[in-house]
């Protein structure tokens, strides 16, 4: 038995460690004790997590970390960032090196069930898309029969592409590259008609073109890549805090509360807004947070729309349109359960 334990596969080991460390309430106490949230982020992904020239981290993923810090401490700056590689991100979480992971991580069954992790929500609905040169005159991906396609090798992107073209009985010629920079150069040099990658990345790749205006991103999305914050399994209290910090941002947008008007909104008569800002209803009780936890998030980080536009949307260079990430009542699928 002992021998078998020793040679057991890594996932099982990871699971046992993860289960061993996370107990309800433990993470929140530890975080409060040390005075900051240790948040795992990407080592650099345009618009999602990147350090500016002063060394401050910013991005849509980073804003989730800041929201959690604002909810717990009333101070969004009480976050320390651990830049993580895609391979080490789950280990870092399982071994308690970080308290939460907010690193463009796709929510899948395998990860949710096998790794001892819980996905707390979706802060960006991503999916694979296509970028074509404007003078190709293509308006939809269904017109791409026979096209040559630039892809990064070794990604699920390649498989999704094959599925999509086969399902629509179209032909294509794949041209694979090793890094995103090479892919862009290949596209620019005319080696291929189409470049495919996750949509959030396509916009960043487009900026790398010498004439960004010469290419367009097609509307089709051919795969589901819901990205969201992750916590260790087993500490439900911490899970709730991370999950509702994200929901508070989405709810605030829905209710029209932003960092600019949140103080004025305190005198609003709308019961939904009053519940969000902790003036009535359950307040911070169930989450074991102060009553103004959501107020602090909106005041210091902003609502979801503000975070989106600032980091990846119209306020940034990426200029990603809301698309799927618009609110449910606005043509998208971002939907948060009500605070009541």
């Amino acid at each position: 038995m002992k021998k078998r334990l020793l040679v057991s596969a890594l996932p099982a080991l990871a699971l046992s460690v993860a289960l061993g460390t996370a107990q309800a309430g433990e993470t929140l106490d530890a975080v409060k004790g040390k005075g900051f949230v240790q948040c795992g982020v990407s080592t650099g992904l345009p618009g999602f997590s990147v350090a500016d020239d002063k060394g401050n981290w910013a991005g849509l993923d980073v804003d989730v970390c800041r929201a959690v810090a604002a909810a717990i401490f009333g101070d969004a700056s009480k976050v320390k960032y651990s830049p993580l590689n895609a391979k080490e991100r789950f280990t870092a979480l399982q071994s308690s090196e970080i308290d939460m992971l907010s690193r463009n991580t796709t929510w899948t069954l395998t990860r949710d069930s096998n790794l001892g992790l819980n996905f707390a929500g979706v802060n960006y609905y991503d999916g694979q898309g296509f970028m074509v040169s404007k003078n190709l005159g293509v308006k939809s991906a269904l017109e791409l029969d026979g096209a040559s396609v630039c892809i990064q090798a070794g990604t699920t992107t390649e498989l999704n592409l094959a599925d999509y073209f086969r399902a629509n009985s179209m032909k294509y010629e794949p041209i694979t590259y090793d890094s995103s920079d090479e892919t862009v150069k290949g596209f620019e040099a005319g080696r291929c008609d189409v470049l495919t990658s996750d949509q959030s990345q396509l916009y960043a790749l487009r900026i790398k073109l010498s004439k960004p205006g010469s290419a367009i991103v097609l509307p089709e999305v051919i795969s589901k890549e819901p990205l969201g914050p992750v916590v260790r399994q087993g500490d439900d209290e911490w899970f709730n805090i991370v999950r509702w910090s994200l929901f508070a941002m989405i709810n605030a947008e829905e209710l029209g509360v932003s960092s600019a008007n949140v103080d004025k909104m305190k005198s609003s008569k709308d019961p939904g807004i009053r519940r969000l800002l902790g003036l009535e209803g359950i307040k911070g009780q169930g989450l074991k947070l102060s009553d103004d936890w959501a107020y602090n998030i909106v005041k210091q980080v902003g609502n979801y729309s503000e975070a989106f536009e600032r980091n990846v949307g119209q306020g940034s260079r990426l200029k990603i349109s809301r698309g799927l990430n618009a609110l449910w009542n606005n043509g998208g699928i971002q939907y948060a359960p009500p605070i009541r």
Partner: protein
Amino acid sequence: MSTFERGPDLPPPVTQVGVIGWLRRNLFSSWLYSFLTLLALYLVWIVVPPVINWALLDASWSGTAREDCTSDGACWVFVSVRFNQFMYGFYPEAQQWRVNIIYGTLFLLMTPLFLKAFPWKTALGGFIIFVYPFIAYGLLDGAWFGLEVVETTRWGGLSLTLILAGVGCVAALPLGIILALGRRATDMPAAKSLCVIFIEFWRGVPLITVLFMSSVMLPLFLPEGVQFDKLMRALIGITLFQSAYMAEVIRGGLQAIPKGQYEAADALGLGYWKKTGLIVLPQAMKIVIPGIVNTFIALIKDTTLVLIIGLFELLGMIQNALNDPNWLGYATEGYAFTALTFWIICFSLSRYSMRIERKLHTGH
């Protein structure tokens, strides 16, 4: 009978002397060489002017934002805006004097080592190798001296590159000597096989695997609640890895010492340690200086691999900067800058090693 009168010496034909002569001899001595010369000239002509145009003449040098890069050439604004970060990583700007002090004092401490007349070289060398790293760590981290604590996650840039390479080399050298001696200790089979296994294991795995193990697997094996700093894990991995290479380099030196030297030492009645310390090692180390510097230069460049475990040394810092939405698309400038920086460091090291070799060359 007419007498033979010696006329004045004629100058050699112009095609044999001067510039033309030299050209004919060296570059156009046959059809093949003429062709190769012209081909090389053509290649230089198509490569060099565009590079100079791009990097120097057409480049944008001053400014603060992407908009200042209006010309067709390189955008060095990207590098100058981020220069501080490339050097110090995320180390807080107000605390960067600590990094400067460490490198400044290290430089000052090392200068006497190069003066012939300085008497306490061994003591100073020992201090630099065994004591100074702890002082440097204390100052960088800050906790021991009551300064603001700067966690290792915020160390970065070129200063981190030098820390990784410096610690890796300094710590690997004594370890490598022990391993090399152990591997040659035929009268101690247990110690010998241990050293052989160690060396062959660490030499057989790629550094990237070692780093991955240290950052992905090791935390899972540690007991609950025990955190082990990521930089420290990487440093230990690099040191063990490097010591295996160092051991083999030094073993080469040990083997080059003639048997007579060992026998002479034995004849003088020296014990093992005296024989090794006074006769064998000083000669062996002198022989392997090029090899040591060679592995050290390789290590400096290998440190860039730590970017895969999320440590931001120079190259990692540059890759992070390249992902800033404000600076997307300046990869060429970033990588050119990295290459130049590494080249300067490695080239100065190799010149330095040649200097030491000349100085220590006493001839056998």
